[in-house]
């Protein structure tokens, strides 16, 4: 019981002792903690950066149902294709997605958009602001468009009418982040300047297309795997291969479908054309007939007019002659009338004479008559009295009576005679008068008739005049009508001519069109499917590359940190053990076991290492991946970041740190413990002074001043520490230089590629060989030179290794020389393209282990294999290229078709934009790539590596500081007696500083020199790990990088020296020199 208590107490004491030790030696404790913190922090942070990046992107891609496979066809894709793909095992979420390039022009700018169908099934963009498009005239745009252009949600985008889009104005209702565009690149187009600026999403219904540009699909179970892992790749690869299997069938089917449709359409068009032609011809004929008819009509009308004129002339003259005849007649009748009148007047005179004669006769007669009548009356009266007397019976008178009666009868007879005469005369008179009267009447009638005749003639004349006038009018009108008709006719003729010409033209155009259509149909190429996975997307693949670089850095850096940590902690801890050797001796003498004694140091270093490790990993886990991610966010459109506490890495890192630090502690403690207590309790015999090699060369040694000599000798005395200082400093310098060197090397590769290797400014892709276009570009005054080539993509393989590369078949070697400089990678001399073999870019050559003279196999996109001899390896920085001469290419049985132009501007001020827009309008050109733009893109990409540089510089600077500070501390504590002695001797502070620091300065100097040399090689190593598959970093360290690296290390050295100064100043002579009792 008592023993137990005792033991426990002992433990407590030791523990207390250890704690106290930490307090006393807190500077050392902190420095070890710092080392562990740096080591574990960087290890944990860097190692988990890659996985964090991968996981965050993976989560984003999973959340947004981003495609695993993307199929594009040269002839578009259909629902049939979708159904066929759906039948393939392990495919899911197969969707055809509409998309369309549209252009939006504002007053001073043109924005080219990729308009994509919004789908919540696949590639679903994440809504950042606003709402999703619900109407056909709504859209959501990418955030950057709003930022760059100043447009806001609620504004409207207008595009030109497009038959494949049902709307031409889209109101921005929100902003989104698309999972399929994580890089800055949006692709190329035939609109605007050839580059797509932004993407936007539209309602599916807006699209009026009969094909899908893309089919996207997911692979079953791929979501549960992380991108870039083998498991994921294998899943995708399997489905990929299955799609490859149906590819040919589908391509063929689509080709036939399109061709049939086109043929049918052509046929229909031809029929339509024929019909239209016929109709047109008929119509023309009709028009012609009409013209002819109206011509005839006009002629007839003219004739009619003529004859009408003639007839009316005759008629008028007839009428005139008739009038004159009737005038003559009238004149005659007038004369007759006048004669009659004269006669009549004579007759009237005669009558008047006769009448008076007759009147007188009559009067005589009347008198006779009256006398006779009175006689008669008397007779009658006697007769009446006789008769009355007879009647009354008087018969006496009867004889009388009979006489009287005979007398009466005679009288009566006389009377009658007279009466007759009278009557006769009266009758005669009456008849004469009657005759006269009738003559008069006849005359009057004749007169009347004559007057009437005249009147009639006048009337006739008048009538005739008016008739003539009206006729004249009529004629005039008719003439005008005829003239108008003629004019109209002329016009009609003209129109007809025009119509005819137009018609003929139209016909020939239509015929040509039909011919063209036929040709087009002929030239419809077999459909070609391109099956892409995510890694084929430049955005994803370059981000994957970035992750890989991150992983590479994560393996390289912590090694250096741990190495330095071992160095530092071993010096630091062994110093601690050394300082306490007396104590160790005492404990040992008291009977403590080695293990128990060491425990204290183990506890001390474990505590500091683990504490440092935990702090380090907590900082590292969060800080470094976030910094990395934020940095990458500058050049990528990245989703939300989810840094994880990957404790396995942290624990691993801490374990490594513990092994390094505690291991070296145990090592140095054990070394001390080997001595027996009595030896331990005496101060360690100081290290012997020794002559250095330099002293054996009196020539130099004699020339050195005293302090230089002491310094040199000191440097050599503490060889281990000197070595460590040198290693530490040189390591830091090398790291800093590697950082700068990496930056120098990568900063210029874009310029190298597009300045030193490629000299052209524009690459234009052609859809057909167009010599007219080529010569027009050649003759353009802005253009210095043009080289044409047939460029295609293929796979180069040698001994089982293979890589995709761009194959450029050069039409004219001299032309190509003007736009590109193909230099031998070793000698940097220009190499000519020969007909003997191909030239291969150097990264490709090194990846495939190709040497000059090797025979490589080139597989084209149709899986045809050709063997070529390699006649040279050429300098190249970005991408893989194979250059083949046209003749060599053809000699292998290939068709040579110019499909690419490399165009170089003349130097000086050239209006590039106008030229670019101009040539884009040419139908033979499908797209152009402006090198200046790609240069910008590559620069952006490379900027991500600046981060690596920053990490290199900052971490190595930290390291430099820690190393120097630690070494300075160890140096001081180890030499404190020496320092005190110097002080006692009366060395000024500055002299003491110099005595100590001169050493560290010399060591720093040596370290810097070695570091610069090491850095040169380290740069090479770092470059090779950071270098992506298709880039060759040009190892090129600028002079100022050397200077800067040296300067940074020196600055740290100076800072540490200043810190040392204060420590030295504090060294207490009395305490330090106290005799060990």
């Amino acid at each position, binding site marked *: 019981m008592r023993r137990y208590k005792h033991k426990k107490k002992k433990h407590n004491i030791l523990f207390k002792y250890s704690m106290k030790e930490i307090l006393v030696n807190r500077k050392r404790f902190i420095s070890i903690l710092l080392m562990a913190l740096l080591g574990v922090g960087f290890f944990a942070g860097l190692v988990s950066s890659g996985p964090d990046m991968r996981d965050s992107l993976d989560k984003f891609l999973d959340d947004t149902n981003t495609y695993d496979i993307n199929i594009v066809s040269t002839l578009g894709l259909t629902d049939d294709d979708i159904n066929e793909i759906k039948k393939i095992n392990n495919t899911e979420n197969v969707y055809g997605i509409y998309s369309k390039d549209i252009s939006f022009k504002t007053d001073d700018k043109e924005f080219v958009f990729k308009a994509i169908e919004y789908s919540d099934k696949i590639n679903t963009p994440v809504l950042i602001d606003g709402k999703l498009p619900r109407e056909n005239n709504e859209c959501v745009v990418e955030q950057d468009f709003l930022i760059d252009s100043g447009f806001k949600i609620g504004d409207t985008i207008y595009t030109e009418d497009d038959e494949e889009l049902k709307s031409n104005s889209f109101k921005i209702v929100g902003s989104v982040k698309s999972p399929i565009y994580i890089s800055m690149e949006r692709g190329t187009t035939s609109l605007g300047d050839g580059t797509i600026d932004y993407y936007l999403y539209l309602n599916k219904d807006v699209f009026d297309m009969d094909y899908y540009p893309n089919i996207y699909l997911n692979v079953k179970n791929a979501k549960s795997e992380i991108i870039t892992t083998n498991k994921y790749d294998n899943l995708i690869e399997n489905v990929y291969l299955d799609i490859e299997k149906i590819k040919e069938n589908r391509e063929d089917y689509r080709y036939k479908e399109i061709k049939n449709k086109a043929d049918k359409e052509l046929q229909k068009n031809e029929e339509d054309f024929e019909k239209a032609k016929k109709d047109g011809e008929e119509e023309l004929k009709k028009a012609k007939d009409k013209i002819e008819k109206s011509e005839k009509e006009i002629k007839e009308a003219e004739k009619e007019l003529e004859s009408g004129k003639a007839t009316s002339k005759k008629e008028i003259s007839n009428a005139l002659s008739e009038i004159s005849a009737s005038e003559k007649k009238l004149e005659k009748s007038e004369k007759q009338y006048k004669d009659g009148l004269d006669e009549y007047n004579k007759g009237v005179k005669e009558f008047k004479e006769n009448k008076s004669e007759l009147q007188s006769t009559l009067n005589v007669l009347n008198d006779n008559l009256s006398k006779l009548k009175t006689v008669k009356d008397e007779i009658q009266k006697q007769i009446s009295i006789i008769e009355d007397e007879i009647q009354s019976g008087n018969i006496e008178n009867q004889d009388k009576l009979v006489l009287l009666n005979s007398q009466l009868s005679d009288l009566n007879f006389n009377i009658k005679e007279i009466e007759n005469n009278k009557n006769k005369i009266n009758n005669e008179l009456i008849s004469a008068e009657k005759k006269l009267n009738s003559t008069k009447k006849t005359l009057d009638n004749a007169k009347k008739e004559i007057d009437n005749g005249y009147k009639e003639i006048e009337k006739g004349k008048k009538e005739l005049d008016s008739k003539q006038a009206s006729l004249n009018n009529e004629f005039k009108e008719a003439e005008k009508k005829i003239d108008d008709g003629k004019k109209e006719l002329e016009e009609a003729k003209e129109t007809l001519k025009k119509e005819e010409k137009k018609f003929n033209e139209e016909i020939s155009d239509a015929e040509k069109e039909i011919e063209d259509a036929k040709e087009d149909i002929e030239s419809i190429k077999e459909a070609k499917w391109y099956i892409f996975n995510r890694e084929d997307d430049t955005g994803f693949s370059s981000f994957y590359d970035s992750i890989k670089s991150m992983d590479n850095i994560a393996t390289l850096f912590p090694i250096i940190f741990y190495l330095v940590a071992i160095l530092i902690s071993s010096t630091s801890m062994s110093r601690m053990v050394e300082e306490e050797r007396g104590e160790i001796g005492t404990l040992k003498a008291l009977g403590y076991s080695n293990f128990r004694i060491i425990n204290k140091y183990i506890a001390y270093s474990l505590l500091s290492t683990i504490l440092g490790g935990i702090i380090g990993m907590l900082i590292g886990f969060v800080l470094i991946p976030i910094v990395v991610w934020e940095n990458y966010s500058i050049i990528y459109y990245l989703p939300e970041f989810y840094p994880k506490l990957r404790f396995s890495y942290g624990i691993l890192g801490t374990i490594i740190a513990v092994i390094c630090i505690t291991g070296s502690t145990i090592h140095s403690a054990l070394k001390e413990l080997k001595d027996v207590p009595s030896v331990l309790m005496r101060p360690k015999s100081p290290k012997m*002074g020794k002559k250095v090699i330099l002293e054996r060369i009196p020539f130099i040694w004699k020339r050195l001043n005293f302090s230089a000599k*002491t310094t040199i*000798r000191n440097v050599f005395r503490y060889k281990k520490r000197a070595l460590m200082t040198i290693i530490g400093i040189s390591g830091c310098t090398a790291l800093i230089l590697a950082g700068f060197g990496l930056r120098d090397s990568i900063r210029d590769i874009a310029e190298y590629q597009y300045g030193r290797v490629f000299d052209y400014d524009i690459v234009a892709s052609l859809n057909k060989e167009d010599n007219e276009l080529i010569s027009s570009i050649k003759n353009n005054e802005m253009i210095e030179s043009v080289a044409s080539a047939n460029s295609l993509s293929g796979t180069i393989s040698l001994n089982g290794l293979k890589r995709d590369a761009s194959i450029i078949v050069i039409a004219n070697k001299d032309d190509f020389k003007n736009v590109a400089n193909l230099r031998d990678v070793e000698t940097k001399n220009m190499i000519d393209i020969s007909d003997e073999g191909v030239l291969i870019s150097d990264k490709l050559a090194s990846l495939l282990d190709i040497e000059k003279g090797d025979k490589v196999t080139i597989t084209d996109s149709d899986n045809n294999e050709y063997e070529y001899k390699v006649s040279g390896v050429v300098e190249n920085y970005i991408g893989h290229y194979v250059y083949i001469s046209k003749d060599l290419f053809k000699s292998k049985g290939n068709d040579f078709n110019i499909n690419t132009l490399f165009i170089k501007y003349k130097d000086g001020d050239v209006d590039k934009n106008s030229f670019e827009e101009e040539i884009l309008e040419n139908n033979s050109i499908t797209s152009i790539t402006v090198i200046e733009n790609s240069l910008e893109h590559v620069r952006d990409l490379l900027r991500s590596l600046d981060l690596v540089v920053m990490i290199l510089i900052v971490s190595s600077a930290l390291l430099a500081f820690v190393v120097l500070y630690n070494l300075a501390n160890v140096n001081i504590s180890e030499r404190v007696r020496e320092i005190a002695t110097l002080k*006692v*001797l*009366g060395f000024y502070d500055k002299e003491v500083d110099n005595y100590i620091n001169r050493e560290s300065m010399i060591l720093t100097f040596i370290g810097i020199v070695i570091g610069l040399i090491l850095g040169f090689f380290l740069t090479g190593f770092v470059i090779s790990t950071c270098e992506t598959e298709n880039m060759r970093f040009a190892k090129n360290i600028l002079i100022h990088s050397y200077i800067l690296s040296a300067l940074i290390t020196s600055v740290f050295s100076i800072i540490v020296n200043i810190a040392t100064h204060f420590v030295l100043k504090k060294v207490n002579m*009395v305490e330090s020199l106290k005799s*060990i009792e």
Partner: protein
Amino acid sequence: MAYIEFRNVSKEYKMGEVTIKALNNASFEIDKGELVVIVGPSGAGKTTALNILGGMDTVTSGKVYVDGKNVSNLKGKDIIKYRRDDIGFVFQFYNLIQNLTARENVELATQICRDSLDVDKVLAEVGLKDRKSNFPSQLSGGEQQRVAIARAIAKNPKLLLCDEPTGALDYKTGKQILKLLQNTCKNDNITVIIITHNSAIAPMANKIIQFKNGKAENIIVNKEPKSIDDIEW
């Protein structure tokens, strides 16, 4: 005024909450060219007095004059200059720079002094003519102490302060060292102060100062100092 005046000097150290009085109103005087031996038990304040005299420590109160100069008020650069020009120190454990040869150790001192002595001559004086290019580790304790003494006197100091110079040496060697110190005092007219707990050697001194409880309790002037050769212990 005497060459060295130690007037009512007190020195207190604060160790946590306890104040230790290393010197408590100590006073003594030493004349130029004297060889003084300071004796006393451990913790009597001998070393503290020597350190104060050598400009390695400061006083809490009191005054110290050396050659008419108030040393107790010196600060910073002046106190270093005082050590540099006026003081030679010899320690029990020599405190040689291990990395320097005997000659170089002496040179280390002379290079910072204005009127230093000739290094080789001094080394010859201390009897190390033939060993001057040896490193400390190649020398015996006595030889190392000789180097230390040579280093101290080569500076041509006003005072040679020796803190238990023979403490780590055997009798014979110790005697040789003391002899050297006595000769130095005599021949070069340097004031030498030796701390020792061996009061047997006191007769070699011109003046013996006995320390007790932080005070110079007894100052004995020895009119006829004995040669060290004549002292046995």
